């Protein structure tokens, strides 16, 4: 059964949840947040979609197979760790560089952020894989 209230709310909340998840991801380096909680929030956006419509619709909205998300996430996190090997430092050593962004000033960008992005993707992938499989099995 689809409810108009739920579908409308889900449509409105979808972008809000996704933006919140990115916010949490970026905030995570120094303050509460990070790839894990950000990933959970992003997954909840699609889970809400699946509840409002159905699992097939949610898969379509996601566009990417959750397995691929997990794989890409693992490789992203791994590459963040391996980059330091190329720089001659032990695995997973944080490498930093600063980037000047017009209007935003100096930004420090480092491999820990890349690692967190990997975690984010893995969490989104694995959470949705479980949720979508379970709701399709109903």
């Amino acid at each position, binding site marked *: 059964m689809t409810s108009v209230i739920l579908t409308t709310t889900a449509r409105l909340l979808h972008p809000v949840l996704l933006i919140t998840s990115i916010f949490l991801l970026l905030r995570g380096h120094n303050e509460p947040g990070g790839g894990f909680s950000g990933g959970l929030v992003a997954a909840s956006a699609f889970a809400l979609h699946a509840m409002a419509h159905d699992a097939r619709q949610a898969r379509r909205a996601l566009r990417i*197979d959750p397995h691929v998300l997990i794989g890409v996430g693992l*490789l992203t996190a*791994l590459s963040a760790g391996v980059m330091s090997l190329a720089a001659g430092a*032990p*695995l*997973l050593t944080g490498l930093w560089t600063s980037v000047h962004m017009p209007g935003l000033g100096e930004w420090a960008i480092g491999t820990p952020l890349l690692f967190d992005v990997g975690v984010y993707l893995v969490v989104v992938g694995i959470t949705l894989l479980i949720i979508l499989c379970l709701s399709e099995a109903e």
Partner: protein
Amino acid sequence: MKPLLVLPIILPLAAAAGCLLAWRSRVAQRVIGVAGAAALLVAAVLLLQSVWRDGVQAVQIGRWPAPFGITLVADTFSALMVLLAGIVGFATSLYSLASIDARREQYGYHALMNVLLMGVCGAFLTGDVFNLYVWFEVMLIASFVLMALGGERAQMEGAIKYVTLNLMSSAILLAAVGVLYGLTGTLNMADLSVRVAARPAGGVMTAVSMMFLVAFGIKAAVFPLFFWLPASYHTPPAPVSAVFAGLLTKVGVYALIRMFTLVFTHDVAFTHGLITLVAAFTMLSGVLGAAAQSEFRRILSFHIISQIGYMIMGLGLFTAAAVAGSVFYIAHHIIVKTNLFFVSGVARRLRGGYRLDGLGGLYRDHPWLALMFLVPALSLAGIPPLSGFFAKFALVRAGLAIEGYGIVGVALVVGLLTLYSMTKIWSEAFWKPAPGNAAESPAPPMSADARLMLVPIALLALLTVAIGLAPGVLLELSVRAAEELMNPAGYVTCVMGEPS
């Protein structure tokens, strides 16, 4: 080269991620799975070579200094274990190509196998007790899924026992790590080695060491904690049970040897005396249990237990020669036991089951397979000139050197009983005429699949023969591994840096 130390963890992870990316394509997953295992094998050979040349190596992950961050350490023992994991991993992935069904492959069999290998290698390489727990979990979670993948009724029954007991062991391990941290304020094994030695030897430390003994003892399946093993190892498909039988219990043995040579050496008379006693009972109960079985893989499962007894016997005797015997035994056993499970899988493919009364006539129909069974089987029983003879010989000689006549006697009797079990499999599965009308009809030729399954079996059998004909190489490696284990000063200096 420092990157070598992390490669055995990175490569399987990359292969697992690759398998996930190729989720839709079964062929791509098979290629990536085998390539990952092959790459691991190559990295492991290079690592062992480098450790042999330059001695113990350590790397501080993330450049956090030693007692605070996570350290990866490779001494000869670790590097040898990683190499064995590489060999078993590669052989199993080849074997799986022929014997794992499409459905299991679609549900991520190859990705899981690589995650399992990553967990095993991580456990061998880590120099941090909590990290060791984490690698155990990585390995166990992958193994839980591999155990249950396919969802057959018998598999589920085995998986429930396996998961329950292993989770209990993990809980005990975690509690033990917590108490140890509370007592010493560190988790780094090298640092622990120093701090435990500096404390007055007391009952509390012995109690903690017993918690570790129970936790790793469940994982290694020693007496009286082994009962989950024969209840579960015969349920999954042959390549899965081969890799479990070959590698997983040995990770528990590895952890026991590591902790009880590096950290808990404060009350050797009690702790190692107890380990020797446990070893004797483990050997006996395993081999007697096997005598009562009549299913191919259940016999082999009980034999894992009795063999585990030999491995920790060397640790219990606690001399350099005895520990070297243990290391040699582990290397020999991993190769031989994996191979025997492989053979059982081929027997099932040819005859449709694992029960000995349904098998038969395999020697008449497939003499090469019979020969390739005979090599690991006789090696397991310790017949010269195969690898098992030298493994048992090293242990027995080390036992006689310190006049441990009781345990040596048990070891010899158990060797004889092992031969009895192997003879039983031989005469039932290979020698006796095939049951029913199959006896008269000419043997159908082996399918291409079954012939592919023979490739890894032949490779491992050749390795067994090679170790038997030239035991010097492996013996030198084990002696050096044992010297490093018995004198942890080099290990500690390598991890912590020179004392300032």
